[in-house]
Each structure stands twice: as C-alpha cells, then as structure tokens.
C-alpha cells in the first residue's frame, strides 16, 4: 500500500469516526444507524487485504471505544476480526464485483454485533437478552446502503505505488 493511500485511509477513519459520533445519530431510521467504521474497515479489507482492514478496524474500533462508556477494546477486537475475515473471504473468492463487499458487510454486521454482545456477556458487562432479528436486519441493510457509497469512493483513491503504476501502464 502506498504512503498516500495510508494517509488517505487515516483521514477516512477520522471522518468516519466524526460522522459516526455526531451526524448519524441525528438520522436514525427504524431506530438504527449505519456503523460507518465497520463498513470502512470491511471495504479496506476487500480492497487492500485482510491486514490493512484489520488495522483500520482496530484503529476505528479503539476510537469508538474511547468515547463510549462500554468496555474499552471490545469494539476494536470485534471490528479487527470482522475486517480480517472480510479480507480472507476476498482472497478466497477473488472477485472485484461490488456484490462481494455488499454480501460481506451484510453478514459481517450480524457477526460483529453478536461477537460484541457475546464478549460483553462473558465479561459480565451485559445481560443476556434475546437478539432482535428485526433490528439486526435493519442495521445490516443500512450498512449495505453505506457500502454502496463508500466502496466506489475508496476505490477511486487507490494511489498506486510505483510498482503498481508500472504494472498498470504495461497492462494498458
């Protein structure tokens, strides 16, 4: 990954965090809002590989944990694992279709939430409550809407390094 891409992703994480904290709670639909940080981490994992996604998931999750009164590190952990899984899936399926990130975001929203709640229950911080499928489904759909915007946007700013540029020129 080029240095420009790294800087770009740092700005994207910061913006996603500010939006997540300040703007999105004002625009809840059916009581839910998209999890932009999770969506960005999954998209980065698909575009730049599992480790890049895991690092973005960790950074974004940790920022979220720092301003939330829940146990620090839990969101960082679950978002890291969700993004890493997304990157691994991308390596398995080897496709550049937007359908892959859409499906990954849809299913990994369920995965991330259940893991998050599971960890909190194990730590004794959360009561075991019945999972509301409707709420989960709405959140997953909202995240899918977000990925339709974020995926092309992040793909537009690839900033290929010298080797990649050379390869692309040769291919052309």
């Amino acid at each position: 990954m080029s240095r420009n891409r790294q800087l770009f992703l740092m700005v994207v994480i910061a913006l996603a965090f500010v939006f997540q904290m300040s703007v999105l709670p004002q625009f809840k639909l059916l009581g839910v809002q998209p999890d932009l940080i999770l969506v960005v981490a999954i998209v980065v994992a698909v575009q730049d590989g599992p480790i890049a996604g895991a690092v973005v998931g960790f950074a974004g999750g940790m920022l979220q944990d720092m301003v939330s009164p829940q146990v620090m590190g839990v969101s960082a952990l679950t978002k890291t694992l969700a993004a890493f899984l997304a990157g691994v899936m991308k390596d398995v399926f080897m496709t550049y279709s937007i359908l892959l990130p859409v499906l990954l975001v849809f299913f990994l929203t369920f995965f991330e939430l259940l893991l998050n709640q599971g960890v909190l229950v194990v730590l004794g911080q959360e009561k075991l409550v019945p999972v509301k499928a409707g709420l989960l489904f709405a959140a997953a759909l909202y995240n899918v809407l977000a990925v339709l915007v974020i995926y092309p946007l992040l793909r537009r700013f690839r900033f290929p390094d010298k080797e990649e540029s050379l390869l692309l020129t040769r291919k052309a």
Partner: protein
Amino acid sequence: MPAAPRTNRNRIILIMIIIVCVTVVTLYVRESDRGPLHRVQDFFLDMVSPVSSAFAKIFRPIKDGFVNLFHLPSLSKERADLQKEVAQLRTERIASREVVAENQELKELLKWQQTQAELETVGTDIIGQSPDNWQRLMIVSKGSSSGIKKYMGVATEEGLVGRIISVGSRSSVVQLITDSRSGVGARDQRSRETGIVEGRNEEVIRFVPMREDADVRPGDIIETSGLGGTVPPGIVIGRVSEVKKRSSGLARFVEVKPFVRFSKLDKVLVIITPEPESVILKEAQ
C-alpha cells in the same frame, strides 16, 4: 515461495492487534472507575462533546427541514425561486417554533423543579446519543465541574429518564431506563408493591416485582422506590401496559410504557444526591 514471509508478517500483526485488544479489555475490566483507561475515556468524551453538540445543533434544523420538505407537494421548476423562498420561510418558521418549544419545555421543567423543591437539580442539554445501535445512552453537556457524579438520577417533568454512568469534567453519559443494562428500584404507586424496573433496549420496559403474587394491574403507575439510594422516591416512571401471567396465575412479567418520550428530549435535570457512588459500593459489599 515469496509470499511466505509476508504471510508470517501478517499473522504476527494480527496476533499483536488481538493481544493489544485483550490486554486493554482485561486492564479496563480489572481497574476501578478512576483508573487510567476510564480517565482516558472521560477525557475523550470531553473532547468530543463540543463537536457533537455543534453537529447536533447544525443538523437538527436540517433534519426537521428535510422531513417537512419531504411532505411538501412537489413544485414545478419554473417556480424554483418561489420554492427557495418557501423553504427559507419554512426554515425560519421551524427555528421560531423551536424557540417557542424550547421556551415551553424550560417553563415546564422549571415548574416541575419548583414542585420538587426538596430535590437539588442541575439542568443540562442533550448533546449526543449513543454512537451504536445496541445501547440506549445520551450525552449531556454538564459534568463533574457542575457537581454531577456517577449514578445520579436524571429526570424531566414527564418522569425518570435514567442515570449517569460516566462523568467527564464538562459532559456526562446518561444510561436511559430503556437500556438493557439499566435497573432501577421501583414501586407500584397504588399497591406499593416494590421491585425493579429493567430496560430491554425496547420502547417498553419491564417491572419485576419482589413478590411473584404482587398486586399489579394494567393502568397502574410505576414510580421510583428510592431503594438503592441513587434516585429519590416518588419520581414517576411509566404506566403498566400489560401483565403477563404464568399458567399458575401469578404475576410474572409486567410491561411498563415510560412517560418520557426519549426521542423528543432536548433538556433534562440531573438530580444531585450526596455521594451516590458510595451507596452503590456499600450495597455491592
């Protein structure tokens, strides 16, 4: 085989991230509420709260305007100038309505505060909401510098809102009574049966009476019992909407509809109680 070292490196990075996360989680859970990680959280909350407050103020009229415009019949392109004027007037009207509503709300809060003369309270604005979908929290614009402490109750003239669970110097986090981790000592106003009101991350909360055969009926008003020492007794919580009975006929689940309309809250009162945290600690011991 050029990919092998890279794969190993990736594996090491992932393992390191997981170790960092697990370490942070462990340290956080084991430390006290005044530990370094909790302080970091409070510090960041203070840092973020002015930004949240600004965005909330910016986006509230836009959101309201958007909703209103959504309901307006569509206008033709030739009347674009007129449409702009209408939108501008509408925004102004929304702004003035907001001022009137705010005025009314403040008057009601003041009236309620006067009727609850024995309670010392601090009025505060709501500047943010839970950043995720799985907690029912609100961020308010006052913190320890205004005398707010952890576990203090939060109310409006409509009834109990929740309690403070995290305090920064200029902001605090309120756990709503609808949050699944919330539990408040409560009683039936008519029969005086005591119990606990628990949140379930839904609009409706649940009253769990101490006695299984407790006399609780639909329509009864549930209020705080004062047991626990953090929230004073007599603050209304909600009305019993349904009593689900077991086959033996004993009352088991009592559903309560809160009086407070959480989606419309702008301002709340924090009830100042002396050393609420020590009461909780004493109970835990």
